[in-house]
């Protein structure tokens, strides 16, 4: 973990990162609680333990840079500036949610507002979509960079190779960010992949690739910032691999019996939030009181999101057939 006391970064930014990680953890914890109580439907994939990655990565973006997320995407959306109320309402399937209750946890998007191209229910499917966004930026010359989140297991989809190959060949302004939590559902990455890291594959495309500690938001920020600047300057894509830990199983409720006990031991030892908090105090960036105030405010925001979501209405059943098509919707849905 890098020191934050070099004063290289402002207190505002460091506390902002702390607050962002807390928001992600708070949101996920609340979602887990509601899901476990049977208040939510379907499936949710939580990013508890991975908070530092989206936080550091999105700090490296401008607000009008684009982002493509994954099925484990709540943290990405929050870090990009997502509204907790609209997110929680979407998880509850309410009409006030980001997607009017039509997408749920795996499809939260805010294309015009947050420049978020959305989460995705298909592993690896966001990679070509992010590449296409960068392709549009390249053609328009608009200087926006697209950040593409994907997991270690998505790196074994064909879309990973096809997309990075094109992005490299055409020097597209995209950053491929691998959140390596070592598990695709129950399958450990090294059991199905011959390389030590995912980033080493960058060599095959002759692009920059590095693996960094994804448990520290500042480390993530620095690596992603370098890749974002490189992309924005017209040099093309990079792979940034952030090692991290998935505290829960694949989905909420998965007991994760397939993992050795040592996985969670290491995860707790390296857990971003308590370590970052200790550092903020130890290096005199903030006082205990200041941190407690941030924590209380985040708790309040999470409770407000819960209240907003639970008090919101479900969509009217008649909404089932809207939004399939932009034009001629009714006729196209009836037949």
């Amino acid at each position: 973990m890098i020191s934050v006391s070099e004063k290289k970064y402002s207190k505002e930014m460091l506390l902002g990162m702390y607050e962002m990680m807390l928001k992600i953890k708070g949101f996920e914890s609340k979602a887990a609680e509601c899901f476990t109580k049977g208040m939510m439907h379907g499936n949710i994939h939580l990013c508890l333990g991975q908070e530092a990655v989206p936080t550091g990565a999105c700090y490296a973006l401008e607000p009008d840079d684009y982002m493509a997320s994954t099925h484990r995407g709540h943290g990405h959306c929050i870090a990009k500036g997502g509204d907790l109320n609209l997110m929680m309402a979407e998880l509850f399937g309410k009409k006030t949610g980001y997607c009017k209750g039509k997408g749920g946890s795996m499809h939260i998007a805010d294309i015009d507002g947050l420049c978020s191209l959305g989460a995705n229910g298909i592993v690896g499917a966001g990679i070509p979509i992010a590449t296409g966004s960068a392709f549009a930026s390249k053609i328009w010359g608009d200087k926006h960079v697209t950040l593409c989140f994907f997991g270690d297991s998505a790196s074994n989809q064909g879309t990973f190779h096809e997309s990075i190959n094109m992005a490299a060949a055409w020097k597209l302004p995209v950053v491929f960010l691998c959140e390596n939590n070592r598990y695709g559902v129950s399958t450990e990455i090294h059991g199905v992949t011959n390389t030590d890291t995912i980033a080493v594959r960058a060599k095959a495309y002759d692009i920059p690739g590095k693996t960094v500690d994804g448990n520290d938001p500042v480390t993530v920020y620095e690596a992603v910032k370098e890749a974002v600047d490189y992309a924005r300057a017209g040099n093309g894509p990079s792979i940034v691999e952030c090692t991290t830990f998935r505290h829960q199983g694949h989905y909420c409720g998965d007991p994760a019996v397939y993992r050795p006990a040592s996985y969670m031991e290491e995860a707790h030892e390296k857990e971003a939030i308590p370590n970052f908090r200790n550092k903020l105090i130890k290096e005199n960036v903030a006082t205990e009181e200041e941190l407690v105030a941030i924590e209380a405010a985040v708790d309040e925001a999470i409770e407000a999101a819960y209240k907003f979501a639970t008090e919101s209405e479900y969509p009217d059943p008649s909404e089932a057939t809207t939004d399939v098509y932009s034009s001629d919707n009714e006729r196209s849905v009836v037949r």
Partner: protein
Amino acid sequence: MSKKISVSKAIGEAIHEEMERDENVIVLGEDMGKMGNVFGITVGFQEEFGAHRVWDTPISESGFCGMAVGAAMRGMRPVVELMYNDFITVAADPILNQAAKMRYMTGGQASVPMVLRCPMGAGRRNAGQHSQSLEAIFCHTPGLKVIAPSSAEDAKGLLKSAIRDNDPVISMEHKLLYAKKEQIPEGEYTIPLGKAAVKREGTDLTIITWSRQVNFSLEAAEELAKEGIQVEVLDLRTLVPLDWDAIVESVSKTHNVLIVSEEVKRGSYAGEISAQIAEELFDELDAPVARACGLNIVSPFSPTLEDENFPHTADIVKAVKKVLNK
């Protein structure tokens, strides 16, 4: 004023005019740039519009179709070619799971205004993986619109509308229509999606068909007329949205229906139309709805085998007579 051009040239004109009209219209696919497409549809486009608007992609159908989805979500209007519709098997996720569903899953936020051009159809002796008519896959998938023109005039007018449409549109283009030369209007025109056309009027039976089978159906109607059987040929032109009003109007007049397509018969879109007519127009029918389609087999290579696998004029004549009990 009209002019005589091939169907492929008419398709090229549609793309060319839309590229001139809207700088967000871009072309991508295998061999679309330098070569100008294997069917010559975009010859000269790259020199004229520049390499930033006409892209030769690597052989990465899943990758470049997915990329088109992302670019379209940002406001581009990509006109993408799958060299053969059969290749949808390797681009199924970006088209069927992403392009088609993005608007709905995001609660109406996302638009994916892309066109996927799919050369399709039998008769070129290309065997099992280059000869299919897979419109049923696309029609089955909510969120996609599907056009399947039979003439140069329709191909141009429909493709222009498809490029301007804010939904993903699949353009089913029969390879054996490409070289066919026909009269089309001079200058700018469009044909709206979802509007069928009566290509021949008749009173005894309605043939509902699309793409190349419109031509065989018109030939069959001509032969049948010599025997005093007046067949109406309804060219759907667009498969989704379906012009149900046109079907109702024609069936209410003729009371007999034959649906003709080159698809594998089992699970075909022809079957879907047949079901809808049976469900909703039963009282109008004098006989059960019939279908003349391909067989439930893999597209064969040898001419004697492949010719068994799609309807020819004689097959359609025979099928019409069977419905009419003549």
